[in-house]
């Protein structure tokens, strides 16, 4: 989303099989990547707004061939965007740490929110966990609610997770 001006399509894999929807022994199931794609695609968040995070960072040297060096990748990476009407603010949050759950204080300016934030979290005990025909719902998004007080939310982002936080504008 942050690089939409140069990246026209977020996911280059087919929606069926690969990182999408599978079928095995008559059981249809989605890969975890399918659910992430769905969480993002159905958020209808199109107007990016400024975000600053302070959640630690790491660098990679001599990594994979296509991207061997990565400098200062944030552990907690957040993209925030308003919807077309400006009445809904969505935060797309990735915790890249494989082992550390990250508690965070979220503060929002320029948007008077209602008292609750809807949260959808996709996470598992291990990054390698997935879904299959035996357990098709092993890794699927979990819905929850966080309290919003004076434009602030406290949330703990599980390790290796993708979280979507939705705030609706207060009627006042």
């Amino acid at each position, binding site marked *: 989303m942050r690089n*939409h*001006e140069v990246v*026209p*399509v977020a996911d280059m*894999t087919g*929606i*069926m*099989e690969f990182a*999408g929807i*599978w*079928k095995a*022994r*008559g*059981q249809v199931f989605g890969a*975890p*990547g399918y659910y*992430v*794609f769905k969480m*993002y695609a159905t958020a209808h968040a*199109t107007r*990016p*707004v*400024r975000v600053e*995070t302070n*959640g*630690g960072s*790491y660098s*990679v*040297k*001599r*990594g*994979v061939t*296509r*991207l061997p060096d*990565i*400098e*200062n*990748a944030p552990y*907690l990476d957040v993209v*925030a965007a*308003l919807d077309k009407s400006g009445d809904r*603010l969505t935060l797309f*949050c*990735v915790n*890249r740490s494989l082992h*550390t759950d*990250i*508690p*965070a*204080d979220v*503060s929002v*300016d*320029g*948007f008077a929110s209602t008292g609750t934030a809807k949260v959808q979290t996709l996470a598992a005990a291990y990054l390698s*966990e*997935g879904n*299959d025909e*035996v357990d098709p719902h092993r890794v699927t998004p979990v819905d929850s609610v966080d309290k919003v007080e004076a434009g602030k939310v406290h949330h703990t982002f599980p390790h*290796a997770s*993708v979280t979507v936080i939705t705030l609706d504008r207060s009627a006042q």
Partner: protein
Amino acid sequence: MKWTAGFLVPLAVSLAGISAQAQITVTKPIPSVATIRVDAGKAAGTVIPRTIFGSFLEPIGNSTYNGLWAGLLENPSLEAGMWDAPHVAEMLKAHPDLARASQLGLPLPWEPLTAGQGNRYEPVYGNAANSWRSLVVIGIPGQPVGIRQEIYSPVERTLSYKGSLYARHISGPAGLTVSLRMRNSAEVLASAHIDAASTDWTKYSFTLELPQGRLHRLAPADFAVEVQGELTRRGSSIC
């Protein structure tokens, strides 16, 4: 089947493709409580087009047939040459009985209705309703003759299955029976009788209703087509 979440790719790719030389260095430790500051009053870039979440569909595996187009059968049109040699080898490794079926003239992954059944089949090129090939099935009086295929039914969400086949009667009794059976068994779970009397290619539709609780999720079953007929010169052509 193990997948990583697509949006964790930068780190996941780094670790998945890690060699003995890759190094990950913490440049700034994770604080005890991180901070996220959002200023919704300040734009950060241009409008994100909805098309960024476009996707595509590739005709591979079960993506299109038996995926987007819900179906239970592989090679329902009884074609030859559907798979390359490595895939055929995989199919034979998973189902060794298919080798004998192939020797009897049946296209993969179809099998004879009963094990030990002799060659009651003849593939015919250039005479089919909606494909390149059809299959002549020659019945035997008093014995079940036909073809079957292993399938997996999504019984957790539906017990009702609609199907159709094209058939052309050649000689003898004109009845066909389609059924769902317990795998490798004569036990019929659901069946439908078709009076396939037409000597022209005709499409026949049927519905099979599985009884509740008889077939469990992830359990294989057989879809079978059985002909009535007498020895030689008589049978049905199916495609």
